């Protein structure tokens, strides 16, 4: 039995069937796979994100994940859980839940006009967070830019609906980020499944319009990683990940840190090292001149001394 699509407008009030709590809709924030997210406020005027859907089981599974993963080991991962209830309109009941509203920028708009260092920095932040999640026994699953936001230069997860216990099957995925689609492994929930998605998020920052897998998916990836100026510093790091060199998020993070830190010491702009080289030769010339003049003075001194003798 299919439920008719709901119509929700700004100013509308959504009341929970079980708790009676009311939320007033301010505007739509976005549409997800199984529902629509609205910005809303409660009676006290606090703003939240509210998701309304049709599939009550799926929504409930999301709530369970949200409750579990708002915080893992004291680290804030997903948005905090606030409320879950049903909304009755006419003869139809729609499940909804309420969570913390995370204000921020999409990864795409954030990266625009910034340097390519940010590709590495964002990926590092993501890997740190994944490390916590994996250590708790779960993988993110449907890891993609749509499920992430940048809040004051900090990466935040806004949708943890695809989080899956390690060892189970990945149920939700988006082809571009899915290693199965790229012929690079299974759809079992393993930390390495997320690690692959991290590399694809990095790829997407260089190719915002994404690309097709072609007849040889691995070749396509390797070619694309080499063809972008933006990915140049990360190229061998990406290739190593696809070769399965990194066992877990911590190891991958360490490798990426080395790339990002290295770039900081040796300035990437080609004119800078040349200028420094010139400065270096000037330095050596100066020291040569100094030793020469010291020698000359000493020699002169010795000859004057021997002349007096």
């Amino acid at each position, binding site marked *: 039995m299919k439920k008719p699509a709901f119509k929700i407008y700004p100013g509308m009030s959504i009341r929970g069937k079980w708790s009676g709590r009311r939320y007033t809709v301010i505007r739509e924030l976005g549409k997800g796979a199984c529902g629509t997210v609205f910005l809303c406020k409660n009676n006290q005027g606090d703003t939240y994100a509210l998701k309304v859907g049709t599939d009550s089981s799926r929504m409930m599974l999301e709530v369970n994940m949200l409750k579990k993963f708002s915080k893992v080991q004291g680290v804030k991962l997903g948005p905090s859980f606030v409320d879950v209830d049903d909304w009755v309109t006419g003869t139809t009941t729609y499940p909804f839940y309420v969570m913390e509203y995370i204000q921020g920028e999409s990864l795409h708009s954030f990266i625009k006009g910034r340097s390519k260092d940010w590709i590495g920095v964002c990926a590092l932040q993501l890997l740190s967070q994944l490390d916590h999640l994996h250590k708790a026994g779960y993988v993110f699953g449907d890891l993609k830019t749509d499920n992430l936001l940048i809040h004051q230069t900090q990466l935040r997860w806004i949708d943890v609906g695809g989080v899956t216990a390690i060892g189970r099957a990945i149920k939700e995925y988006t082809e571009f980020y899915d290693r199965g689609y790229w012929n690079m492994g*299974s759809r079992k929930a393993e930390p390495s499944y997320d690690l692959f998605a991290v590399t694809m998020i990095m790829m997407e920052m260089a190719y915002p319009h994404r690309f097709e897998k072609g007849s040889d998916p691995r070749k396509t990836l390797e070619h694309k990683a080499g063809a972008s100026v933006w990915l140049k510093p990360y190229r061998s790091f990406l290739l190593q990940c696809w070769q399965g060199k990194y066992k877990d998020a911590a190891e991958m993070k360490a490798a990426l840190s080395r790339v990002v830190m290295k770039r900081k010491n040796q300035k990437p702009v080609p004119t800078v090292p040349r200028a420094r080289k010139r400065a270096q030769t000037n330095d050596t010339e100066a020291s040569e001149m100094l030793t020469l003049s010291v020698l000359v003075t000493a020699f002169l001194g010795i000859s004057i001394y021997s002349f007096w003798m």
Partner: protein
Amino acid sequence: MKPGRLKQILLLTDGCSNHGEDPIAVAALAQNQGVTVNVIGVLDDQQKSQPQGLEEVESIAEAGGGVSQIVYQKSLSQTVQMVTRQAMTQTIQGVVNKELQEILGKDQSIEELPPEKRGEVVEVVDDLGETCDLEVLVLVDTSASMHHKLPTVKDALYDLSLSLNARSGKNHFSVFTFPDVNDTIKKVIEWTPELGDMNRVFSKLSSGGYTPTGPALKEALYAFTERPMRGMQDGVDPYEETGF
């Protein structure tokens, strides 16, 4: 609680049936026999409007207790696995709802439970979806208009096997095509736990303008019910009977 084995027929077609018995009636019969019927209507990527007769897709799936979807070729892979999973969940939910009604009385369903209780029940449903055994009989329409879509179908079936084999439960797949001149449907892949190399699967193609969806579905149903009694009863370990 064990849901035993879930049985599904997955029909891939691009048009309306025009020969033989009513496919909707056959789908209803299948559901009654414990076999869910899912239907995917495959459109050409350039196709703008929905061709006539594809409403049948939805009606067959509805009668068969399954899920239907009409998609463009390029999203076939993802749809095939999504439809299969959705139908699994739907079947398991049906079983759980029945149990709930027995315990809590009529009109009770997962949806009617208060959120906290619902949260616990959906976890049980999710666990069953991960661990139950699944048999999928894929029935591919290979009539003339489908020919150029068959490479995409092959990819999608390989992808389906990849998705389902990530689960802990066992899977069995078999692939049939129709129409076939002699037997209405033709088995092109024997029951197997994995759909790997399908290179020569659709090599011999039938042409002609008739699409006997109803008779094909019926044959597919027979192919299910006439299988040796391997774990046909719920909860029976199929390997016990063979003496292992």
